């Protein structure tokens, strides 16, 4: 009976998690080598050579990486500062409920909100006009679909900051960090030393798997860059969708090259995350 349940569970794991990913990756790999696909005529390295000769894939990976790094740096830093300074009001009461609200925003809604908030015709621009900070709509800076991806970074920050704030507030509580702070203080450490030598290193170390996991999510995000980004450079997901879904069928193999490289990149990161996590299974 027990064995049957185990076999059924493993079968479901393979059906719903392992086989789809392997089958999808296998198809992408075969397509990228010209083995399958309507226009392909047999094994070739041509699409991989073309993909590496074309800078757009490399630029997309660098662009997505930089967006994820900047957004995470911003959210982790602000969450650390706010959780350490305002731990008491965040621990319980009104703010402990309030900070959950941004977590209810799906990426597409957050992107829509930031477009209505930061675009040239958005709320901030209108307030700037009414308060005579600007005198015409064109004087308002580009904050969405802009060169520096400010809109994308702010939207990712808006979605990830509450998560890290809750994480750090929880860690301070569950790891009893206040006791460490008191100990450091009684040993003569200054407030600055307590924050930079004790609190931040412990919190960063404990949250590293979550930071890495969030990096992968932001790296592969689609809705936010497609609504708030420019046509060049494109994020990895937007580039993959453009090459695989749009009109030029000759682009499809290159689209699959992008998906294979992306999957390998993610695999590498999961290995690091799992190493960091040191799985909490009992032997």
């Amino acid at each position, binding site marked *: 009976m*027990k064995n049957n*349940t*185990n076999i059924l*569970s*493993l079968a*479901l*794991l393979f059906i*719903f*998690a*392992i086989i*789809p*990913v392997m089958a*999808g*990756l296998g*198809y992408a790999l075969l397509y990228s080598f010209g083995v399958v696909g309507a226009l392909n005529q047999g094994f070739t390295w041509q699409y991989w050579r073309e993909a590496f000769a074309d800078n757009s894939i490399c630029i997309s990976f660098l662009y997505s990486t930089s967006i994820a790094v900047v957004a995470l740096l911003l959210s982790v830093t602000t969450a650390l500062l706010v959780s350490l*300074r305002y731990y008491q009001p965040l621990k319980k009461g009104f703010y*402990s*409920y309030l*900070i*959950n*609200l*941004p*977590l*209810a*925003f*799906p*990426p*597409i*809604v957050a992107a*829509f*909100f930031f477009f*209505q908030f930061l675009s040239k015709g958005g*709320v901030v621009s*209108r*307030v700037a006009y009414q308060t005579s900070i600007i005198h015409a*709509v064109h004087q308002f800076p580009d904050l969405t679909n802009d060169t520096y991806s400010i809109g994308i970074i702010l939207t990712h920050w*808006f979605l990830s900051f509450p998560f890290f704030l809750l994480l750090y507030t929880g860690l301070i509580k569950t790891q009893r960090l206040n006791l460490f702070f008191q100990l450091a203080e009684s040993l003569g450490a200054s407030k600055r030393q307590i924050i930079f030598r004790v609190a931040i290193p412990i919190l960063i170390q404990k949250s590293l798997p979550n930071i890495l996991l969030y990096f*992968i999510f932001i790296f*592969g995000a*689609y*809705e936010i860059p497609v609504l708030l980004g420019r046509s060049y450079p494109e994020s*990895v*997901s937007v580039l*993959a*969708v453009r090459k695989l*879904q749009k009109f030029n069928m000759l682009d499809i193999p290159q689209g699959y090259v992008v*998906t294979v490289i*992306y*999957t390998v990149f*993610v*695999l590498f*990161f*999961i*290995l690091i*995350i*799992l190493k960091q996590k040191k*799985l*909490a*299974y*009992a032997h």
Partner: protein
Amino acid sequence: MRIKFSLLFHAFMIVICIIPILILFALSFSKNWAFPAILADHFSPIAWQDLFSGGNDIRHSLLLSLLIALIVACTATTIGFFISKTIAYHNFRRQLLFLAYLPFVLSPVILALCLKFYFIKLSLAGTVSGVMIAQLIVAIPYSIIFFSGFWNQRVKAFADIVNTLGGTNMLALTKVLIPLAKPLLLICFFQCFLISWFEYGLTSVIGYGKIQTLPIKVYQFLIEANIFYAALSCCLLIMPPVLLLWINKSIFLKRLY
């Protein structure tokens, strides 16, 4: 100086937590919103009235999203609970968990593009069942990872006691394991519901645009530049999560800790 910092903190929290919701609700009640007016020329509940009277197809999308999310959440929580138990006490638990991580962390839109061929071959593309299966490919691994921390020696010992005292595995499951895991089961259900409720990439690729869930509707309204209906869809998208988060925080987390 301390008062200034405190004021800044209050302002900061209100701006990031409350202003977005207020703006979305205000937009959903607006009619004309020409530059440079901060508020719309006039407010009207017409979009919301249309929703309740069925004058637009948002109601259909709302009900479809709700149906898909409920089925996906129930299925993923149940299946994930049992799979995670098998993995937790398996000799290859690290390797199996590594494989379970993959579909959950891959970009849903890229995963969908890789799987689209198989969904077309199986005649599942553009169908509600196809979208649900695609979402389960993401939700079940999440559920497995979520429960991975639950199974430990203490839980195993409780189940073993039931077996030692002559109880069946079913009895151990219904009288010990499920009551122990009840708060986690509910949280996992909420999280899987939200994964499905928020899902855009998988639904748009596998659903072929035919399965119009609320996130698909938001994107469609944005393309049509119909910001008032897009705002209404956004409000409908954030209302259940706000409610679930509140229940999650006020009831289940209190019970858990």
